[in-house]
């Protein structure tokens, strides 16, 4: 399977199964419409006839031989070698946890998927003892995994900051005993940040996600506090302070959500960059289509154009030495995750679970509150291994729309929770999310192709590949 597309004056071809990315000229791009394996010795007559009005015969014949050579190298029209691995998919150690330390929030974000903080289960804070049980659960179920990830989530985690500190202290005590290493992260709206919490986060958290939507007007429209006042002016100085004081080797992201109200969301990304941040994630809202801010399939063309605009701006900035990282355009075409990881995706319900303040266990934060997907309870000592097995099987070969999709080894089947909530089945891909993911991937690959070309020596950088 291949995927070919044109963007930014480049013709790009992805060989899906090998992961090969080829920059091609216009002739090759068109010739690919006429060829498919197995490759015969000679170029198909139909292709020669169709293309000879625009291209020289010898070029067509040469081009065909180049395609044939790539096919023989198994980096074009290569076979799917992975289904055999998927057949052995099995329940895995649990290595990651989303700890809902607070099911309360001091903000009232209009698009909140957590029902303004309590996930529809009542406002409450997690007792320290429940947090400790969660640590014990993770240590017990992680088997041979060395690195354990624990994200403090909410609601707003800093509403229960003392418990955050106590749980971290407890985990640090126990990790040596188990020969493990905890990597803590926290997702915060920033309103309650102070010197104490900034110091603690910067010393203990390997990553921190700082929620802000971009421009002041974008942020304040959707992210007010309980009284309705916007939060931009409250949180921006605190986020800046946290990032300025943070070790440059540690991760952070300012993370926003875009909606139908700001389809020009690239401006929000730029605004965050202008404010001094260089690690930025701005994601599409996922919600029921009944809401006025909901993104729908009719928005796809506008969002796609905006992603392209953002990609080009990132390239411009790079050339000017003003690099910033956009999370959803991050891709390492040589050293990304292995194919095994790509088959099974996020690992929710199998390698990853969420824990509520009551100690209830769910496959991930997005499933919290959906009774059908409650996997067990820490205090009761229950855990549904059958459900864990079900999630271990939610790989791309069990998702009908994924099997024939060119993007399957990049999104890895998408979000199981979104699939369930909006398509009715964890194995039924959420169409809108798929389309946006595919566009982001096209942009991300294009950025890598441009960088590759621009890093070539002038005599190597043939202008033949820049066609428009």
């Amino acid at each position, binding site marked *: 399977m291949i995927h070919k597309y044109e963007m930014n004056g480049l013709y790009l071809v992805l060989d899906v199964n090998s*992961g090969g990315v080829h920059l091609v000229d216009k002739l090759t791009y068109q010739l690919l419409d006429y060829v498919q394996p197995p490759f015969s010795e000679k170029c198909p007559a139909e292709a020669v006839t169709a293309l000879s009005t625009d291209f020289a015969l010898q070029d067509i014949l040469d081009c065909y031989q180049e395609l044939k050579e790539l096919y023989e190298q198994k980096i074009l029209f290569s076979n799917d070698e992975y289904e055999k691995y998927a057949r052995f998919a099995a329940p895995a150690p649990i290595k990651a946890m*989303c700890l809902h330390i607070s099911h309360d929030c001091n903000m009232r974000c209009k698009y909140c998927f957590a029902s303004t903080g309590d996930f529809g289960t009542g406002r409450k804070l997690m007792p320290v003892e429940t947090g400790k049980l969660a640590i014990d659960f993770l240590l017990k179920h992680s088997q041979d995994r060395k690195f354990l990830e624990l994200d403090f989530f909410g609601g707003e985690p800093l509403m229960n900051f003392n418990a955050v500190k106590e749980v971290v202290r407890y985990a640090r005590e126990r990790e040596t005993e188990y020969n493990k290493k905890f990597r803590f992260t926290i997702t915060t709206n920033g309103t309650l940040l102070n010197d104490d919490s900034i110091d603690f986060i910067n010393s203990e958290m390997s*990553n921190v996600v700082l929620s802000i939507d971009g421009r002041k007007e974008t942020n304040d429209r959707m992210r007010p506090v309980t009284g309705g006042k916007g939060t931009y002016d409250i949180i921006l100085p605190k986020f800046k302070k946290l990032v300025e004081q943070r070790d440059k080797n540690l991760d952070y992201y300012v993370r926003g959500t875009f909606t139908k109200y700001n389809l020009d969301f690239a401006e929000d990304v730029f605004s965050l960059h202008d404010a001094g941040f260089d*690690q930025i994630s701005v994601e599409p809202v996922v919600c029921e289509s009944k809401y006025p801010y909901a993104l729908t399939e009719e928005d796809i063309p506008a969002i796609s154009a905006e992603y392209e605009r953002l990609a080009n701006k990132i390239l411009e900035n790079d050339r000017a030495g003003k690099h910033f990282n956009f999370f959803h355009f991050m891709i390492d*075409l040589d050293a990304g995750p*292995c194919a095994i990881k790509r088959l099974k995706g996020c690992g929710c319900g199998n390698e990853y679970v969420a824990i509520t303040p009551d100690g209830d266990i769910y496959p991930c934060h997005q499933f919290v509150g959906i009774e059908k997907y409650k996997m067990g309870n820490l205090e009761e000592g229950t855990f549904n291994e059958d459900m864990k097995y079900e999630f271990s099987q939610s790989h791309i070969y069990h998702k009908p729309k994924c099997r024939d999709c060119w993007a399957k080894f990049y999104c890895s089947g998408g979000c199981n929770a979104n699939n369930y909530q909006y398509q009715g089945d964890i194995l039924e891909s959420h169409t809108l999310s798929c389309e946006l993911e595919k566009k982001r991937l096209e942009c991300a690959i294009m950025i890598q192709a441009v960088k590759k070309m621009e890093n070539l020596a002038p005599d190597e950088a043939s202008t033949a590949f820049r066609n428009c």
Partner: protein
Amino acid sequence: MKHIMTINKANLVQSAKKGGCGNCQASCQSACKTSCTVANQKCEKEAK
């Protein structure tokens, strides 16, 4: 090649043969809590 430039190692098949150690980050633990991308995660096999 005159008409085609391959810009990466195209090493997915090899990655499968040596992969699956499970040390890599869970996707939703980084900066996405709503839209999953796996290919932007790092391989952490060497970290073990």
